[in-house]
């Protein structure tokens, strides 16, 4: 079997190499790239993200990413967002009181975690995945590695729309419930870092690669 090709979007900061290494270990042929054709044509696209919501959105806009990510989604071509790459798929992010527009694939705002808990939320936490989740298949009660101070803490998607299958939402908790993962047709996203989550993360990446 040939290894599915995965393009990992390179916008030049943080440890995005670990995503490439983990994807290769999990069975993909992954490469770090900013070449639009490669990013469009790969079997899977990974949008990693570290740093601030607004900075990541600016970096994405600078390379016209919202448009071609939209094209991939319209063509049912899989996309996986990780951490801030998960957050920017929502409508907007509010950091230090300043709102920035996200890609708006899903309703909801990325807001600060409650003030009564240790922040950043850093370390291994449990998740509560729905029964229909394909992403967490075979994973059970494993913990995943999170590093973030902001999260989507409400889900307002109309789950009754008959025209589409409702997204599978996985929750976690740190001071408040927040969205740990979304599976919505070709579009998948995790607030945690599967590439840093040991065996559980490797299984999750294999599950995603298996859909490519």
């Amino acid at each position: 079997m040939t290894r599915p090709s995965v393009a990992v979007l390179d916008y030049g900061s943080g440890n995005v190499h670990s995503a490439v290494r983990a994807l290769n270990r999990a069975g993909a042929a992954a490469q770090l790239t900013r070449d639009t054709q490669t990013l469009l044509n790969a079997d899977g696209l990974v949008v990693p993200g570290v740093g601030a919501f607004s900075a990541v959105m600016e970096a994405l806009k600078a390379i016209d990413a919202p448009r071609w990510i939209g094209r991939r989604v319209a063509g049912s071509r899989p996309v996986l967002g990780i951490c801030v790459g998960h957050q920017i798929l929502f409508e907007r992010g509010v950091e230090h009181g300043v709102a920035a527009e996200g890609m708006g694939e899903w309703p909801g705002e990325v807001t600060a975690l409650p003030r009564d808990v240790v922040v950043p939320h850093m370390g291994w936490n449990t998740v509560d995945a729905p029964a229909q989740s394909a992403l967490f298949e075979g994973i059970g009660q494993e913990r995943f590695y999170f590093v973030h101070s902001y999260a989507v803490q409400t889900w307002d998607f109309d789950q009754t729309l008959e025209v589409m299958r409702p997204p599978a939402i996985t929750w976690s908790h740190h001071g408040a419930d927040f969205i740990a993962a979304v599976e919505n047709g070709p579009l998948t996203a995790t607030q945690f870092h599967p590439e840093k989550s040991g065996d559980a993360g490797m299984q999750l990446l294999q599950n995603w690669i298996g859909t490519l």
Partner: protein
Amino acid sequence: MSLAVRVIPCLDVDSGRVVKGVNFENLRDAGDPVELAARYDQAGADELTFLDVTASSSDRETTYDMVSRTAEEVFIPLTVGGGVRTAEDVATLLRSGADKASINTAAVSRPEVINEIVARFGSQVLVLSADVARSADVASGFEVTTHGGRTSTGIDALAWCVDAAERGVGEILLNSIDADGTEAGFDLELIAAARAVTRVPLIASGGAGDPSHFPPAIAAGADAVLAASLFHFGPVDMIARVKDEIRQAGYSVR
């Protein structure tokens, strides 16, 4: 659901080799950081920290190569400290495959470097490592030191924690110079005092000599616990024993 207390082994490395040895059985090469990192990963470590003690900057390339080889094999968070002076040093470590960098003396000398690193890479990449000793010369009674505790700075350690957190560090590694090497337990007063003034994650370090020493550090406010000798020279299942102790005290572990 709750966040697990992280148990972190720390390995001293010099020119790409682990120094001070490790007591795992059946190691091909006790000095190979990649093999040791993989063993600690299997043993249940939640993160790994390399402390680079390489003296010569010309040997720094071997550190980057070591980090890169480790990151190829181990898929848990990897922090590298020692010799980090500038945002460019952090960039090189991240490119090599580190997830976080820890900074110590350079931040004491020039605190603005914290802001520079955080502005470029975000809070999550930066750990402030503070070597703290008790002293009557500062208000809180806890003073920041450098050079392994030999040099006093006159800086109040608690004020330094507050300042560093405001500048954006993602975590604080509190290393007690007084407790370090005693194997008599963590400095609980230091942990509690730091917890009272900051809400960033705290990693307790220094003094661990037995699994029973860990729950009190967590009760005092540590979010993570770091040790070196206890894991290197203890039995192979020491990480599991520590986690059992923490679990029995009512805290979550992975």
